């Protein structure tokens, strides 16, 4: 079973430095847990793909097409001509289209956020409650105790205040 090394730092700059060194030493995917979003993470840990924009775009597209189809389709299903106006009236139906574009865009964005950040979490994961207050944690998964020792060393050298050994996720 894998074990996790977690080092607590008191400043984002030291946490970033530690994460960079761990990555440089060949550890896979070190993670930083922080109370605030840290600037410059991407420089150290590599650029992250942003897949949410696809969700937003296709959600909005679906909503737009669906919205117009809803308004026009139901108007055709139950034809009720008023004041000689067309059954499929473009200007008012565009408003429905507009609203549903936004509604579906919003819902898809949320879905994209949950899927891509793997929330809601169904099982326990590596975490340090201090990292929600004023500490910056760097965690890394180690395959064996030898690797853990190396990670420990790197974290210590980067100035970790405290280093913890945590059970890994299966």
């Amino acid at each position, binding site marked *: 079973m894998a074990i996790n090394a977690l080092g607590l730092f008191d400043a984002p*700059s030291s946490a970033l430095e530690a994460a960079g060194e761990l990555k440089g030493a060949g550890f896979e995917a070190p993670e930083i847990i922080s109370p605030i979003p840290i600037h410059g993470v991407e420089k150290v840990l590599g650029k992250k793909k942003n897949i949410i924009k696809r969700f937003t775009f296709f959600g909005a597209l679906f909503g737009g097409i669906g919205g117009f189809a809803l308004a026009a389709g139901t108007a055709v299903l139950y034809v009720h001509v008023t004041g000689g106006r067309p059954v499929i009236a473009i200007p008012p*139906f565009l408003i429905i289209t507009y609203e549903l574009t936004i509604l579906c865009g919003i819902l898809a964005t*949320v879905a994209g956020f949950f899927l891509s950040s793997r929330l809601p979490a169904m099982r326990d994961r590596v975490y340090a409650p201090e990292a929600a207050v004023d500490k910056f944690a760097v965690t890394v998964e180690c395959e064996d105790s030898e690797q853990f020792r190396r990670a420990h060393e790197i974290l210590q050298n980067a100035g970790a205040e405290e280093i913890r050994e945590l059970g890994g996720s299966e």
Partner: protein
Amino acid sequence: MSQREIAYSEVNDDIVRSLVVTGRNYYITLAVSILVTFACFFGPWFYQIQYGIGAAGMNHPTVWGTYLASFIFWIGLSHSGTLLSAVLHLTNSEWRKAMYRSAEAMTLFSVMVAATMVMVHVGRPWFVHWAVPYPNQMEMWPNFRSPLMFDVMAITTYMTGSIIFIYMGTIPDFAAVRDRTTGWRHHMYVLLSLGWRGTDTEWHRLHWAYTFLAVLIVPLAVSVHSIVSWDFALSIVPALHQTIFAPYFVVGAIYSGTAGIVTVMFVLRKYMKFEHLITKLHFDNLGKLLLVMSLLWTYINAVELFTGWYSESSEEYEALGFRLFGFYGPLYWEMILFCAVAPLLLISKRFRTSFVPMLILSIAINIGMYTERFLIVATSLPRQYLPDAWGMYYPSLVEILIMIGSFGMFTTLFLIFVKIFPSVSLYEVKETLPEPQPKLRTQSESGAS
């Protein structure tokens, strides 16, 4: 910034305290607002349901009354919360961070109250699901050409969007509070935080999702109040049938919403003891925004009068004359005083940074804005084309009570909110503080900058 001396942990302490420690005053206020809600809102509403919509003063030709005025008012009040928060997020405004959460909550609860006002207004709320497009045994579909259906779609979208926007932004804060609470609160926050840890990936995703939501919500908020205005402007009633109505309503909405934020900020600052988080800077900026909105609002009002006069149509003259000098004339001038003249005080920086005068002005503006909405319905419908179709509208006791009760309902919802949601965004306030620096170490490696 003026908050330089606060440490990260103090922010957590302050917010958790605001959630967990509850004074006697809170319970008294909550009890009073619940009482007002039941006595003035649900009681009279029940009476109206039992005896029919005739319990309200609405009758031909004035078939819209204070219920709709309240509806526009609450939808308007909802505007600046999410809209302001989204615009300020997109423009990277630092000062937004201490106040946007409660502004968004204000949005959410005002939209809820507004939706309830529609239920009250329609008279038979048990048929309200007919406005939802779903296959039914009558094989009937809603008429999407009607502005009322635009409203249904817009408000549903707005309510959904606002709930999601405020919730997404709060997930990290729920997680921070989760770690500090015990008992039922802990369980609640465990569920609400969804297992958020604050990893770099999670922050990255949240940032983008939140930004996209903000981008979607800004045009949505603008569309919502435009659509509400079309409920009126798409009719052929003199003084309502005007193209200026959509921007007029949007400006009015942001205006009253910003004033609402000032009121709420004052209360939060004073009673939740957020003096060091919500500062003069916030009031100063909100004051500037209010001033701009007030000038815009005044301009649009002038345009409305001018185009009415320039139209040279007798029914337009009659409607405008009735508004300015008719039975409800004094209310019109009260509105001008509160919404166009008094806000000129905001030109002075000393005024903008004085808390109590700002509170008084913000309340006055909202009284004026409620009056505006009332005048829109109560002075246009009584004066339509043919004089024999004229008639007056006076709100009945039931309507007045429900109007008062709607404020009670809003207050109740907001009071419950401040004890469940961290009313100031923890992580964003921390972002405005100076970043922690590594402590000086004796080790040889560099890193301490």
